[in-house]
């Protein structure tokens, strides 16, 4: 029982990242009709927003410590962050420690800007081109973005820890009546899940309860008619692209304490997120979220020792196996609508 609960938690956690990325992909596909293979790169850029802010906050001047020596036997040069000089070591240290949560504020404008630049600068020229062209150009863009990040940050993963108060693990089992130490779960992963739920809720509320959202939904249903009513739907769709980029970016920011970010982390998520979108149903926002969590949980269970000893290799194929089964039984995906991606 405890193992099952742990794997459900793991699945929800993995599913959170899948759902957030797939949500952004679906927003872009549903509004602009573009298959955006650079979406994983947006997740990665979001993660590097956290790394950048951490570096900016840790920006230091060098102080020579005569009492210690470096590896060559010269007096040790110690890096002292400016921020610790300005606010004192305690407050300055705390600001650096909280760089990942603070990066949320930093990442939103950056990601919206990156989204706008991508859409206006490149992707809008491909609206009327076949999906294959869109895939090629966005995939190429993803590689370019990856290499730019690698040029500035190197190929190695960069540790970006969570603040101490949110690190470590909590004994969830003891809280719900299990024995002590039976269900221990990392605190930051719970934070990630709650954050993902909040963002997903906010996006749905925005689309559901605001006039802007209503127009966007109308545009998704029938772009031409909305345009004929005198509404500049293109501008709104550009804004949606920015929002989708911000959602992927925030997913990336919050993911950095889970695994140290590196330049190719976006590609690791990209293919899975596309499977999530297809399983959920192309263009369906609730479908993307549902499929994200579902596939996350299935992947977790397929990685258990019991599953891998019963069917060796199941952990590597489960997602694709489910995708095949769903597409054979429900060709439009779990919540896909008629007419989307169909001639």
């Amino acid at each position, binding site marked *: 029982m*405890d*193992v099952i609960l*742990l*794997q459900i938690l*793991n699945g929800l*956690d*993995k599913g959170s990242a899948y759902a957030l990325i797939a949500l952004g992909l679906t927003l872009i596909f549903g509004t602009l009709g573009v298959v955006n293979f650079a979406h994983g790169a947006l997740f990665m850029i979001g993660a590097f927003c956290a790394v950048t802010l951490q570096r900016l906050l840790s920006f230091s001047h060098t102080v020579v410590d005569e009492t*210690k020596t*470096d*590896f*060559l036997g010269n007096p*040790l040069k110690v890096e002292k962050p400016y921020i610790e000089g300005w606010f004192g070591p305690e407050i300055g240290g705390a600001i650096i420690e909280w760089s990942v949560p603070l990066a949320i504020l930093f990442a939103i404008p950056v990601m919206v800007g990156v989204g706008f630049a991508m859409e206006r600068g490149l992707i809008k020229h491909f609206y009327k081109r076949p999906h294959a062209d869109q895939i090629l150009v966005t995939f190429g863009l993803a590689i370019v973005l990856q290499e730019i990040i*690698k040029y500035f940050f*190197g*190929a*190695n*993963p*960069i*540790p970006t*820890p969570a603040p101490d108060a949110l*690190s*470590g*693990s909590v004994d969830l089992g003891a809280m719900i009546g299990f024995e002590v*130490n*039976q269900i*221990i*779960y*990392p605190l*930051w*992963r719970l934070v990630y899940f709650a954050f993902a739920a909040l963002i997903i809720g906010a996006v749905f509320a925005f689309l559901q309860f605001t006039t802007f959202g209503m127009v966007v939904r109308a545009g998704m249903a029938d772009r031409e008619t909305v345009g004929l009513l005198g509404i500049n739907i293109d501008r709104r769709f550009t804004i949606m692209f920015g929002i989708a980029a911000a959602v992927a970016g925030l997913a990336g920011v919050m993911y950095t304490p*889970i*695994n*140290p970010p*590196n330049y*190719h*982390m976006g590609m*690791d998520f990209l293919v899975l997120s596309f499977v999530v979108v297809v399983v959920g149903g192309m263009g369906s926002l609730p479908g993307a979220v549902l499929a994200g969590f579902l596939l996350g949980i299935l*992947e*977790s269970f397929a*990685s*258990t*020792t019991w599953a*891998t000893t019963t069917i060796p290799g199941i*952990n*590597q194929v489960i997602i694709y196996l489910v995708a095949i089964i769903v597409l054979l039984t429900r060709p439009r995906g779990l919540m896909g609508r008629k007419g989307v991606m169909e001639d």
Partner: protein
Amino acid sequence: MSKSNLTRRGVLKTGAVAGAGVALPTIFTASSASAFTNEPTGGTVTLGFNVPQTGPYAEEGNDELLAQQLAVEHLNGEGDGGCLNTFSSKALKGNGILGKKVTFVTGDTQTKSDAARASAKSMIEKDGAIMINGGSSSGVAVAVQGLCQEAGIIFMAGLTHANDTTGKDRKANGFRHFFNAYMSGAALAPVLAKEMGNDRRAYHLTADYNWGWTQEESIVASTEALGWETVNTVKTPLASTDFSSYIAPVLNSGADVLVLNHYGGNMVNSLTNAIQFGLLDKVVNGKDFKIVVPLYSELMAAGAGENIKGVLGSMNWNWQLQDEGTRAFVKSFGEKYGKPPSNSAQTCYAQVLLYADAVERAGSFNPCAVVEALEGFEFDGLGNGPTLYRAEDHQCFKDVLVVRGAQNPTTQYDTLEIVEVTPVEQVTYPPNHPMFGGDEASLGECNPGA
């Protein structure tokens, strides 16, 4: 009047033979007039440095390349001479190799076997490289070693830790300076016994490819010899990024030690995930839970950040060693590049010097003469103390380091501290050891190519 002997049949025959000759891969014919492949004829000799310049191990590859460039400088008499001053063999004079100025070309392995073979082949065929050195994966090492054997080129493997490189896949033209998985197990076992006792239950997470399997086999064998029990061995796909699903079952498995047979990005993530799940805070079977990472590298340690604190592992070499050779190399590398070298950089540096020295001692670039000079060669002054290149399997034997993640590092470079220098006798094994291909494993014949 002149009489021609040309006949239609004769022309066809000659054409067919010439055509077949042209069609042969140039790798086998390029130096048909020479005694061996890529025999240097002018005033220079070209070495081929095949390292990952792109992909996830690019940083490690870059470090190797810096060390190789430094070695070339020292061979040509530039810089401070580095380990030429400490090397026990005095054949190298700082005037190139056999009087020829050393130049080099580089290739990008991308840490993919096929790409590594293609780049090595290009350096051999197009650039005339006489020796190939570098790399950061056993898959790549075995693939490139096979290619060099066919081409008649010496291969000095870079970072490769799987037993197979000098085990069942050993080749006469290939040499390994790096230590291997068996040695990690043999070096770690006494330290594990001392620090954790003989009554432990270990759970292994293993990267699902050749290197992971051989390391798991080696560590299981050496820990079970201590009296430890192996609770489970779980293979994780190489492409895994989130290890939470594999870590969660460890919590309630009854294990009190987690062994991570992972390297690179896999290791950074699996260790980070294990720490997140609070494994090191747990008490199981009345003992503190421990994590072991049998193969460490400085670059991985940097990626894992604070998570490596207190975690034991092993290394081929570390810049904090105090022998004369290490100090000379660290000074030379540190003054030029502003950072201490990694253990893969040191491996490549030592290999370039060793190759050059072997050529000088043999008096020839002929690969078979070089092989003869390197086989059974004993030396000192390149780091790790007295070292032997064993003739039977071309494996290097020297002391191995057991290291631990430092609790209070003073800089970003001393994240690992040396716990013990395990003497070479303790990590030596017979050449026909079952983990190394048994009696069937053979180097084959040296191939000079041409």
